[in-house]
């Protein structure tokens, strides 16, 4: 079902750990992983690609090694660095899907904008503490800007600030992988928004509709100026 399909995975942390494990075991042809971080001991409870011996080492290197052990011969390319405006479209160019597991909303919006401009389906998620969301956007469907409109400049917690419970990113990452599999199989989950709350034990699906005043869907956003994403991409 996935022959010739290539996934770009942004971030190699809590969400991306289950995503990468599941993609490596699928029939997808290739993944490219983008991340700039080192494995920290505080990551290990939720970033299941890594082990104690990986602490202090490059995440992308350890992720590549983990995937090789999991699925020998699986095609992996690693890109050390952040997903930033200057390289976003180039990275997306030869991929059929992008799966985003970044830790800040500026990067999430950058992925959404770049994917829309490039015409690449985007599977995105966010998680803090006990809850989070997963969302799928296709070219022509509702996008992240239809959902959250623009990058908040305050009041939004990240995992680094508030922490996240391991099973939350596990569930949401698995939902992202499920979105990816459905897309690669030719199904259409566009606009689906899944909410997961581990404390309530609830998984709920809603649909995001295109907003008539969405600047991305209206074509008003056609480039990726650094200033639009600066605040949190550097976080």
């Amino acid at each position, binding site marked *: 079902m996935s022959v010739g399909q290539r996934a770009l995975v942004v*971030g190699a*942390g*809590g*969400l*991306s750990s289950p995503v990468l494990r599941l993609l490596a075991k699928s029939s997808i042809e290739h993944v490219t992983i983008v991340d700039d*971080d080192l494995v920290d001991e505080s990551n290990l409870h939720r970033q299941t690609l890594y082990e104690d011996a990986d602490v202090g080492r490059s995440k992308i290197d350890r992720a590549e090694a983990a995937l090789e052990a999991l699925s020998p011969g699986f095609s992996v390319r690693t890109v050390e660095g952040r997903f930033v405006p200057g390289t976003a479209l180039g990275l997306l160019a030869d991929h059929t899907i992008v799966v985003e*597991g*970044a*830790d*800040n*909303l500026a990067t*999430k919006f950058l992925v959404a904008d770049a994917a829309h401009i490039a015409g690449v389906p985007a599977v995105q*998620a*966010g*998680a*803090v*503490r*006990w*809850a*989070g*969301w997963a969302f799928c956007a296709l070219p022509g469907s509702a996008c992240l800007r239809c*959902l*959250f*409109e*623009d990058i*908040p400049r305050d*009041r*939004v*917690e*990240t*995992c*680094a600030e*508030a922490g*996240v419970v391991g099973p939350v*990113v596990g569930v*949401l990452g698995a939902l992202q992988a499920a979105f990816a599999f459905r897309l690669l199989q030719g199904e259409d989950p566009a606009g689906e928004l899944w*909410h997961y*709350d581990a*404390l*309530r034990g609830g998984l*709920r699906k*809603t649909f*995001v*509709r295109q*907003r008539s005043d969405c600047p991305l869907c209206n074509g008003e956003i056609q480039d990726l100026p650094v200033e639009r994403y600066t605040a*949190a991409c550097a976080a």
Partner: protein
Amino acid sequence: MAVTVRIPTPLRTLTGGADEVPADGGTVAEVIEHLEANHPGMKDRLCDEKGVRRFVNLYANDEDIRFLDNLETTLKDGDTLSIVPAIAGGR
């Protein structure tokens, strides 16, 4: 009208940890005022001077209020109002 409001984890500090709270109101705006009365600080987390904050979504029975009547969306007894904020993390 008595409705149930689903509270996301980032806002549970305002509800004493409760993930759901009851509220009264015939519209979303009235429910928010009632929430503010019982859980001070809630309104500021949900709204600014222009209305619902851009990175907060409110769902009336799973329908985004932006596609209904926004803050004037009517609610009836037993309805559920869900607060869905932008959540950043994942790494």
